[in-house]
């Protein structure tokens, strides 16, 4: 099933994330990713919700009933730029250090902290690119990984 991306403009009020999350779980909708942050407009935040539901119409309609939800747009995947941030801590030793750092940097990740037995990488990119990095470094032993949730913006006006 293909993914659907909803861009949800909300009032920046206490509890709005809880309302959105509660509506999603109350109606039994599954989501792959949810990211929230401020926008260029004061008092407005944006949530990017990625779901694999066949019909997002019900999700949109139920979320639209929330008083603090202002507008919901489903993004067209062909005209959307998507990005996600990742932090990943991986085991290294003398033998693997060079190879790990090289592999990571070739994938587009930046090393932000390297210790004797670990290295931390940061990467921004499409979720597929982040998946690739994760798979690439898995054999070396990932200690911890965190991803920031996917955000997306339409390319056309």
């Amino acid at each position, binding site marked *: 099933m293909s993914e659907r991306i909803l861009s949800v403009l*909300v*009032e920046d009020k*206490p*509890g709005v994330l*809880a*309302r959105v999350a*509660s509506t999603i779980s*109350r109606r039994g909708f599954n989501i792959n990713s949810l990211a929230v942050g401020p926008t260029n407009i004061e008092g407005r935040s944006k949530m990017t919700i990625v779901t694999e539901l066949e019909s997002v*119409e*019900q999700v949109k*309609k*139920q979320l*639209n*009933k*929330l*008083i*603090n*939800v*202002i507008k919901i747009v489903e993004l067209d995947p062909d005209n959307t730029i998507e990005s996600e941030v990742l932090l990943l801590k991986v085991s290294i030793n003398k033998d693997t250090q060079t190879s790990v750092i090289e592999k990571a940097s070739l994938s587009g990740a930046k090393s932000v902290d390297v210790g004797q037995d670990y290295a931390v990488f940061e990467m921004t990119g499409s979720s597929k690119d982040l998946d690739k990095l994760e798979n690439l470094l898995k054999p070396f032993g990932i200690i911890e990984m965190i991803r920031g949730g996917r955000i997306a913006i339409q390319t056309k006006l």
Partner: protein
Amino acid sequence: MSEEKLSGAELVVRSLEYMNISTIFGLPGGAILPAYDPLYDSPIRHILARHEQGSGHMAEGYAQATGELGVVIATSGPGATNLITPLTNALMDSTPLLAITGQVASEAIGNDAFQEAYTVGLTMAATKHNYLITSAEEIPQVLLEAKHIATTGRPGPVLVDIPKDILNQKVEWIEPKLIEMPGYKPTLEPNPKMINQAAELIKQSKKPILYVGGGIIHSKANQELFELATKFKIPVVTTLMGRGAFPDGNELCFEMPGMHGNYTATTSIQKSDLLIAIGVRFDDRVTANPKFFAQNAKVIHADIDPAEIGKIREPEVPIVGDAKSVITGLIEKLADTDLNTSDWLDELNQMKKEYPLSYNQEEKGPLKVPFVLEELQKLADDDAIVVSGVGQHQMWISQHWNFTSPNTWLNSGGLGTMGYSLPAAIGAKAAYPDRQILALDGDGCFQMTCQELITASTENIPIKIVVFNNGNHGMVRQWQKIFYKNRFSASELTHHTPDYVALAESMGATGLRMIEKSDVKKVFEKMLEIDDKPVLVECIVDPEDMVFPMVPAGGSNDVVILNEDDLKKL
């Protein structure tokens, strides 16, 4: 000139007065106590319930009877949690409700303080919207907004939680003004294109059915509906929440469809080629298994809540808008179309003749609820308001009572809240002291909120209560008979305890009892005569009686079980 400062509590009371609220229902406690002090001097009538759940249902009854906002006030913690049932009930049945709850002081929030509950979190899924007040200045504005949200669009409950320190904060009164809410703009006027498409489908239809519900009543669109149906001779079925939206007794009215609907209403939908669904939500009690529901019909679905459209059934013509505007638009578009539905009406009337609702009241046998209801209606006022509990008696009332106008039938349709009847009747009587308010309840339901009989007596609210006592949770027993091989697990209550007559008397009401057919008329006459205090009539009825017709949950509306013998079909 600067105004004198008022406390948050005074702002609450002044805001209610400002919004022309005349009656509120509630129960005080620690955190809300500051608000009860200015209430003492206010012209607003406060009705003191014996349990917060009762106060919530009273406010619902008030709102359902009047079509206006019902207001309930409670304290923090258990006060607020006890409101969750009425709030959810109001959400399901789209009843405009404002709940004001006290909260522990701002600085104690989150510390598990005495009588603290996370009210906003707990009621998030039980309200249309809710607020936590963070400064006293907000109070008038938020309360006005809350009323606006509760009473417009698809009505529903709104809760405003106010910490105790904020009730004591002194600020100036700032006159509230409705400002635009960027995320709340209900669509009232339907898209004319959709009205055109709907009118075209209606013109082509040979077997149209108006399938209408509570939305007609909320929108006060019953006259428009009457015009649409009678002008174009379109038969009407009214859902449980829509009873009274179109008058029973009219030749076009086929009354309630669904699980315990009459055969003709349920079957008319199955045979129809066009459902004109207005202010309904294709509830499972109407549709049974939606896969088999109205398979031959195209669907026009009009509702003020866009989320209802396509939720259960994808319509051919979706219309978002207020029922009144939708119907007015349809009448205009259809202009002088001649639909010629006479063959269709003949078919339905033939069906009605063949499969009437029936019951068998033996001369010396135990009382049957339908018989008792019909006898009561003969004696009751035409504008009496009937308030029901949930279960067998509720279905029998919906089947056998003739509802001729909106807001005369109050019940808990969506949530099915037992215990609703008595407190909701108190709310209705508080709104209409001069009308007959009949709380027709089952014994199981009555025992859930019967302490509110004290509220009725002490607040001088002379409602009439009929407790149909079959000594059982009747509908549970019926299901156990049909689906659980007569294994009556935990459904028996006994006929004799409590002694309802003594219970009524002890609570300041008059208690009467009817056992035999010959009692019915004279006991009801006596009940209707007494107008200075509440009256309770215990009506001992047959525990073996079952509600038919019946379509088992998840079944097909093509298979209607008409009577006990018919159960073999299952």
